[in-house]
């Protein structure tokens, strides 16, 4: 036979080939089926009719306006409300992440009672009726026993109507103990109070300032009202605005803010006051200061004699004698020529503002430094000038109910020095049971155990207090110590009414109706308090007649209507038109009745009064002299009655420097602890919050590609010296404790300093927020003498490989 492939063979062969092909096809199909069987393919997202609703963000005190996209009953996207004057359509990442708070898997679902002990709680779900009955019972019992003053309510001052309601409730109930968490602006607040005599928040005319000099303020990382500052930052660099504001950041670390600034001035930690006064030296010696303003509106610049004829040192001679350039350069580590140039720029590019002193939005700085920095504003005449430092306009509001108790607040504040709240002081007082024992604490969406520098002290307070209730979204560290845990609604579920954010000059009232129905059994704390007030009856019920928070907010619209000013949020065109009319004294409201105003506020997001009246000296300078006081008479008067003050400050009582801005001594590291620990703040976790949100955790450390966990920033030199490679796990140990953390080598760290970010290291709350270390757990309990503010700087640590 010939060598050929027979037909049959060919058919077989072809058949085999076809079979092979088919087999491979089937194989692929099999893989596909297999794949499908192993893991289901596609996730289908249900659709629905689209709608938009307005909301307000309370992730930080700024209260930015939100515009929420809804599909069916679901909220699917959070954007900025373009009409809102604070954020004008922009939003910071925290606002965008609101959705993850709303739909967070670890949220509290129902009220719970602790049937175990404080140390090892056991939680039992209860009904709201029972929860409110428990709360009412406790408060009624205490009031009837004349112990109303022993109830404390702790919250974070969100500049909101809800806060105002809480405050009124406490007053009407009979307790002075409405307490708020410390803020990073407390030192500044103290300085403004001492030098300008006002307690109203300070604000800045960002849009018109030509020169912004920040002393350690993390301007772009959560300080003040981030979205509005970032908007201003964009405008500073907008060529079409026709000017280029210079932004200088003075701080030891090359932070994100420093990297975004036009100039970064590295400085020895804690030497802010010296640098500011060194600049003052140049301004004075070179005659760059605003002599007219200093003459007309300040006190204590020149040497002076008091009524008793005693000579006092003035600001000028203090600066000229003690803050000569070479001394300041040596102390601060900033070269003389830099100080000289900064001061000249600051004096020549008006309006100029100096900000400080503060590192983060939750940890206050030093009041003397803040005074020194604020004095620069006075020197260049930026106080209440266009483009300068303003005092926030007052919101129209009905007067608060009169206090019915003679007891002082547990932290003995407000003193005449510090107008704010001293939660740290309160914790000490509660622990000591002086001046009276605290019988009940209500926590309103705060977690002081985690977020306060002496959190463990507060934990002991809670353990020691017979009754603790906590409104909370998560079962956080503080709620874990409560007897009663009440699930709070998140921003998109509740009625919202936020007032003027910090650092924003105008009076603003943002409101929003619930965007989505509440999830689980969560309720708005303000609603619960109102119900509580009604059940308690008496003064509390009279002071708060509103049936629910919506009604309470509605009533506020009436007050705004009665104020006969301002306008509903509107386009920037409308605002410009209204401003044009307003500055000539005309008013063109879009509403004729309070109800119309209410309706429009809901539709547009709120009401505001865009006009700021500059130069109302009687409003912004309320010191004893009616002037800006370089030499604080307020402080001097107070010190006369408090001899321990000078002692604490380590100076003689008749030393005038006690009442003038000056550089306080910088402590040396204790033996064995060579590195200074400075906590830092990152925008996604600004305020120490947001750690439970994956969106924010993912971006929090992006300058080092870190995510989900905290990191210890070290300079390359120290890391090398300690044999710590980048990314190694190390121990960081202070005299208070130690923790394990990943070391990251970052060239932006000043040698001799290490940094830990705030907001990490939860031990309770959400599973998602457990990564990292809470730097507050390492900080020593330090206070400064003027206002007794807790100081985050000054804790030294050692770091070693683990």
């Amino acid at each position, binding site marked *: 036979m010939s060598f050929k492939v027979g037909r049959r063979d060919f058919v077989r062969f072809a058949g085999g080939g076809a079979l092979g092909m088919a087999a491979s096809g089937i194989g692929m199909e099999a893989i596909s089926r297999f794949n499908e069987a192993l893991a289901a393919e*596609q996730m289908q997202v249900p659709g629905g009719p689209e709608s938009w609703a307005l909301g307000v963000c309370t992730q930080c005190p700024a209260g930015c306006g939100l515009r929420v996209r809804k599909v069916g009953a679901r909220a699917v996207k959070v954007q900025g409300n373009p009409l809102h004057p604070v954020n004008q359509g922009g939003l910071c990442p925290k606002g965008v992440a609101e959705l993850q708070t709303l739909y967070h*898997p670890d949220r509290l679902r129902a009220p719970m009672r602790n049937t175990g002990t404080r140390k090892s709680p056991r939680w039992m779900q209860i009904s709201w009726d029972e929860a409110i009955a428990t709360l009412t019972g406790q408060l009624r019992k205490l009031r009837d026993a004349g112990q109303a003053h022993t109830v404390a309510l702790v919250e974070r001052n969100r500049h909101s109507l809800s806060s105002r309601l809480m405050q009124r409730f406490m007053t009407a109930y009979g307790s002075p103990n409405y307490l708020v968490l410390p803020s990073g602006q407390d030192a500044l607040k103290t300085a403004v109070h001492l030098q300008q005599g006002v307690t109203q928040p300070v604000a800045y005319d960002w849009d018109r300032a030509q020169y912004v000099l920040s002393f350690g303020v993390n301007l772009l990382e959560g300080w003040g009202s981030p979205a509005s500052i970032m908007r201003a930052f964009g405008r500073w660099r907008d060529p079409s605005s*026709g000017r280029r504001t210079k932004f200088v950041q003075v701080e030891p670390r*090359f932070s994100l803010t420093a990297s975004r600034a036009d100039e970064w001035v*590295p400085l020895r930690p804690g030497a802010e006051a010296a640098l500011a006064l060194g600049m003052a030296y140049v301004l004075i010696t070179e005659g760059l200061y605003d002599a007219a303003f200093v003459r007309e509106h300040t006190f204590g610049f020149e040497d002076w004699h008091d009524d008793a004829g005693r000579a006092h040192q003035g600001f000028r001679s203090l600066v000229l004698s003690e803050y000569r350039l070479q001394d300041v350069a040596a102390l601060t580590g900033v070269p003389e020529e830099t100080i000289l140039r900064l001061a000249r720029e600051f004096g020549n590019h008006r309006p100029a503002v100096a900000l400080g002193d503060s590192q983060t939005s939750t940890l206050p700085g030093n009041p003397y430094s803040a005074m020194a920095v604020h004095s620069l504003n006075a020197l260049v005449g930026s106080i209440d000038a266009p483009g300068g430092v303003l005092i926030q306009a007052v919101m129209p509001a009905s007067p608060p109910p009169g206090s019915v108790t003679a007891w002082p607040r547990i932290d003995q504040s407000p003193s005449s020095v510090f107008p704010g709240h001293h939660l740290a002081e309160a914790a000490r007082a509660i622990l000591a049971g002086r001046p009276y024992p605290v019988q009940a604490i209500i926590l309103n969406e705060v977690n002081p155990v985690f977020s306060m520098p002496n959190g463990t002290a507060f934990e002991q307070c809670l353990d020691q207090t017979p009754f603790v209730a906590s409104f909370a979204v998560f079962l956080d560290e503080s709620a874990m110590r409560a007897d009663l845990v009440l699930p709070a609604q998140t921003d998109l579920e509740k009625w919202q009414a936020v007032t003027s954010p910090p650092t924003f000059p105008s009076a603003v009232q943002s409101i929003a109706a619930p965007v989505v129905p509440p999830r689980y059994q969560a309720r708005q704390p303000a609603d619960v308090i109102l119900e509580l007030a009604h059940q308690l009856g008496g003064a509390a019920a009279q002071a708060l007649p509103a049936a629910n928070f919506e009604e309470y907010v509605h009533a506020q619209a009436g007050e705004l209507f009665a104020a006969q000013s301002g306008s509903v949020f509107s386009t920037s065109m409308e605002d410009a038109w209204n401003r044009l009319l307003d500055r000539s004294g005309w008013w063109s409201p879009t509403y004729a009745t309070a109800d119309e105003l209410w309706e429009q506020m809901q539709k547009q997001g709120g009401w505001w009064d865009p006009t700021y009246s500059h130069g109302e000296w009687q409003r912004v300078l309320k010191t004893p002299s009616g002037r800006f006081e370089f030499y604080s008479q307020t402080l001097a008067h107070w010190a006369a009655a408090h001899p321990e003050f000078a002692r604490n400050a380590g100076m003689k009582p008749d030393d005038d420097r006690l009442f003038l801005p000056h550089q306080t001594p910088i402590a040396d590291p204790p033996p064995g602890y060579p590195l200074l620990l400075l906590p830092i703040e990152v925008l996604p976790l600004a305020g120490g919050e947001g750690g439970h949100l994956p969106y924010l*955790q993912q971006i929090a450390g992006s*300058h080092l*590609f870190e995510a989900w966990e905290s990191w210890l920033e070290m300079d390359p030199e120290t890391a090398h010296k300690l044999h710590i490679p980048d990314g190694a796990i190390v121990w960081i140990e202070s005299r208070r404790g130690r923790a394990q953390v990943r070391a990251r080598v970052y060239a932006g760290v000043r040698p001799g300093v290490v940094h830990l970010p705030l907001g990490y290291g939860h031990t309770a709350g959400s599973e998602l927020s457990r990564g990292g270390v809470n730097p507050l757990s390492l900080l020593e309990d330090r206070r400064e003498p003027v206002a007794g503010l807790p100081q985050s700087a000054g804790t030294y640590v050692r770091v070693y490989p683990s």
Partner: protein
Amino acid sequence: MARWGMAIDLAKCSACQACVVACQSENNIPCVPPEEARSGRILSWISLLPELEGEYPRLSMRLVPLPCLHCDNPPCILVCPVKATGINAEGTVHQIYPRCIGCRYCTTGCPYTRRMFNWYKPEFPGDLALALNPDVSVRPKGVVEKCTLCHHRLMQAREEAKAAKRPLAEGDYLPACAEVCPSGAITFGDLDDPASAVAQLARNPRAFRLLEDLGTKPKVFHLAEGEWSGGRGNQT
């Protein structure tokens, strides 16, 4: 036909990363758990690229928000064996998720590392899935995904303009990142319209395109940071 492009002004950018989160939220991008993040598997269509230079105290940091650059000459679409990615008539580089075989050749071919791969099936723990946007499909595991310039928003804007019987105007269509930017650093629009803000910025002397020498012709421009001149801008 429009040619969509973006200009990101690095001078105005405050590095807040709102764009990153807005993009994640808009486009149903799952968050990855910590251990995955550590191995560099964070999915984000736009992210912040930090470039630190110098030694203390002479330091500079460039922080570049970087979406897909939608190159006019994209290296990624050339290499896809199954035409799962391409460039449409308006210059947007798209990805067909149901066709992608997950070979990751495009991710390899992209010199900007702006293509993401779904290492796992996306997870939305608990009720987080309720926040998903129905306009954007949730990608299955094993496929490559990338910035679409929020194409669904373009379609919606087109429909709305059509319903209102008017042409698509500048600003009608904005991707989520451009919309959210609090400092106004991101400008978006039609590069072929010489009057559009983005086209004007693209012609700005500060404008540059990343890795321009590769000839990829990105449609995302960055504007370099300008120096403070010490003056008062053009007022004086």
